[in-house]
């Protein structure tokens, strides 16, 4: 029976080529636009550390002065001061934790002709790389002792190892950063969380990953400055350890809800203590997990969400259009339906026949929509946006395209198929 419906649908679609092309084209454009914008949206709002992000939390406090403070209406700050970051860090209230700040390094190649160049540098404490699951090609991360000793050691990214050492095992060799020699202790494999969750408020959140990772104290001892500094009063930004400035992030690994509740209590207690000592004036705290933190910071640009909304509106209009055209096609065939009903076809059979026809339109629309989506993503890859070369259709979006296409077409086919199956056979036969 299904084969017969297919044959009927094929003949009917072929009968009115212009209308069929129009339906397929409209549906395909709507689906292409939707899949393109959804792929970008999914890319931008993706999980930077799948499997680990649910256990990573970001404590926030508010060291701002009292003036302008309305309790309940202010949010804690994005970063911590050196003092607060260290106080929280030294308390060791989480199984694993790390301080992190993004800086910039002038990297000098050893060969005489090489020009110095810039690279993003991550200043962190020892557990940062293991905690976020960075893969090592050679060597390993530095130790907590290296942190306290201010050892001049560094972990470099694979692309920097390629550039400086031709991809060889460079553990034990030295890299010159901002005029100081650092000993390589590890070389990473590919590591580029999207977005770069540990430095999201400075832009360039989607890219190829950072070049160097080095101990925080050693970096500060060589006067490496953080890229994002926010001060609430005049102070000397060269001496960030004492200035009224926030520039450090603390990431803590909390394995379960009890640990989170414990840490929240500890954080609130710390803030109350600081208020009692007169260092703090505001009691707000926050402890978002990684994904919540990304949502709070609105990493996904408004434009990307607007575009996705627009694409869905577009698809809605395309579906309305398809309903109209299918309806026109099916009502034109009232006589044919009347004959089939008179010859014994049930209403269900007629309904099925028209739904098969709609499904064929949907599959064709999906197939063509896939072509449009690939074209759209190709266009995005050739834009100079920072996430451009990541915009690719993966297998799940590929499957999703067909689900959307089929669902849209079947929804579009419901009304016409319903109208077709309630056609009364007698008048149709009489009129001829």
């Amino acid at each position, binding site marked *: 029976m299904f084969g017969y419906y297919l044959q009927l649908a094929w003949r009917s679609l072929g009968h009115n080529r212009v209308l069929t092309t129009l339906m397929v084209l409209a549906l395909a454009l709507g689906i292409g636009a939707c899949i393109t914008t959804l792929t970008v949206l999914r890319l931008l709002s993706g999980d930077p550390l799948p499997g680990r992000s649910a256990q990573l939390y970001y404590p926030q406090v508010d060291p701002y002065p009292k003036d302008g403070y309305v309790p309940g209406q202010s949010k804690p700050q994005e970063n911590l001061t050196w003092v607060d970051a260290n106080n929280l860090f030294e308390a060791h209230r989480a199984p694993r934790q790390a301080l992190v700040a993004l800086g910039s390094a002038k990297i*000098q190649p050893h060969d005489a002709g090489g*020009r*110095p160049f810039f690279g993003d540098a991550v200043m962190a404490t020892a557990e940062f790389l293991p905690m976020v699951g960075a893969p090592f090609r050679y060597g390993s991360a530095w130790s907590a002792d290296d942190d306290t000793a201010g050892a001049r050691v560094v972990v470099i990214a694979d692309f920097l190892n390629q550039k400086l050492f031709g991809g060889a095992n460079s553990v034990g060799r030295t890299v010159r950063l901002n005029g100081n020699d650092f000993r390589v202790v590890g070389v990473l494999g590919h590591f580029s969380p999207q977005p770069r969750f540990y430095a999201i408020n400075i832009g360039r959140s989607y890219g190829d990953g950072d070049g160097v990772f080095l101990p925080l104290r050693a970096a500060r001892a060589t006067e490496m400055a953080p890229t994002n500094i926010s001060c609430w009063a005049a102070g000397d930004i060269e001496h960030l350890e004492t200035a009224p400035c926030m520039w450090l992030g603390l990431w803590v690994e909390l394995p379960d809800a009890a640990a989170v509740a414990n840490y929240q209590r500890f954080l609130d207690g710390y803030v109350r203590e600081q208020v009692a000592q007169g260092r703090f004036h505001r009691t707000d705290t926050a402890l978002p997990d990684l994904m919540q933190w990304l949502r709070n910071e609105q990493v996904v640009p408004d434009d990307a969400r607007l575009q996705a909304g627009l694409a869905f509106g577009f698809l809605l209009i395309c579906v309305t*259009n398809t*309903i109209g055209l299918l309806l*026109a096609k099916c009502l*034109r065939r009232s006589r044919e339906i009347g004959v089939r009903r008179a010859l014994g076809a049930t209403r269900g059979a007629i309904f099925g026949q028209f739904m098969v026809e709609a499904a064929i339109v949907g599959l064709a629309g999906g197939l063509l929509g896939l072509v449009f989506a690939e074209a759209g993503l190709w266009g995005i890859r050739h834009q100079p946006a920072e996430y451009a070369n990541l915009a690719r259709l993966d297998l799940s979006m590929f499957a999703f395209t067909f689900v959307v296409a089929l669902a849209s077409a079947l929804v579009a086919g419901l009304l016409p198929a319903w109208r077709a199956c309630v056609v009364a056979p007698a008048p149709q036969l009489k009129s001829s």
Partner: protein
Amino acid sequence: MTLHPMIAALRKHKAGVVLIALQIALTLAIVCNAIFIIGQRVQRVNRPTGLDESNLMLVTQQWVGTPSGDQPGDVDKLDSLQQADLAALRNMPDVASVSPVNSLPLLNSSWNGSAALKPGTELRSGNARTTYYFSDDRMMATLGLRLVAGRAFTAADVQHRGFRDQSKPPVVMVTRALADKLYPQGAVGKVVYLDGASTPTTIIGVVERLQVPGTGSWTNSFTWNATLVPTRLNANFSRYAIRTKPGRLQAVMKAVTPVLYGVNPMRVLDDDSVKSFADIRAEAYRADVGMAVLMGVVCLILIGVTAAGIVGLTSFWVGQRHRQIGVRRALGARKVDILHYFQTENLLIAGIGAVIGVLLAIGLNLWLMHHYEMDRLPVLYVIAGVAAVLVLGQAAVFAPARRASNVPPVVATRSV
């Protein structure tokens, strides 16, 4: 022609009528808001910065192994490095004028503060927020700014100081927007206190217009408030704005890197270091232009799809009413009556669609205002949108309606 028989006929095609009206309504709602967004983006991208943007370029560089600026004498060392660069750049044959700058409009790297009429006002609550441009006496010529009151800087006004030195300049120039805000009766010769300082600064001149470096929405409150300071900032990095002789921009952009390495090879100059102002502008407004283009393309396709839908459904109705049309023609209706019938019918449906569409457009706009940074949709856009969908409907219905009007009266006498 009375509307009564037409409405009676439409009642027989409820589903089709509702679908066309719905499609027109959705199209109107989306296209109205999309065009409004495009308009806003275009307006934003086209606002002049106040610079003469042609033949202007910027070099950003860092020295390697220079003093940090903390020791006495460091600032003078850094200044002599900068002076050497400036001299070399000014000696280039195709260069018209060079000034050290801390930033340029649209560069998204800025130094901001506040200007107050009283000394010692709290940093964040001065009379006006402002951005600072630190440069020298050749700034007016290099950037192509227009003086509207007072005088420009002379060589005698120019100082130099370390990057972190908090001292305030004795004289500044301000933009007209900032001058009007501080002293509506004329700002030249008046005194302001910058960043809550207790030492006065005299305004000696007013420039017509100069945009702040930031392009994000956080700068909306002070987009045109700039203060020009006659000071070379000394740090281990520097920026040079270069005005080339007409048509020589590309040549200078190529030649400038070797010239600077010739002065001193211990510096970082990479691919991003040398930029024409056109590059800076394109980079700053990249997202806005991309959004406007995308919205435009989607609108065009949407209009196409809706028009195709109207053509499809009307063609079907014409086919369905073939015989009735023949009867009307046989009873004396002229071709033009049939044409008008279908046109009026479409006008009626499109009109219903437009009414719903206006409501949807306003609703969508309110929703967007609530969730995104969006202004209220001006009535003009809605009226234009309504007119556009009605015209679109008429254009789409014309071909099928003409086909209907060509149905010969003899059809009425044929039994099918």
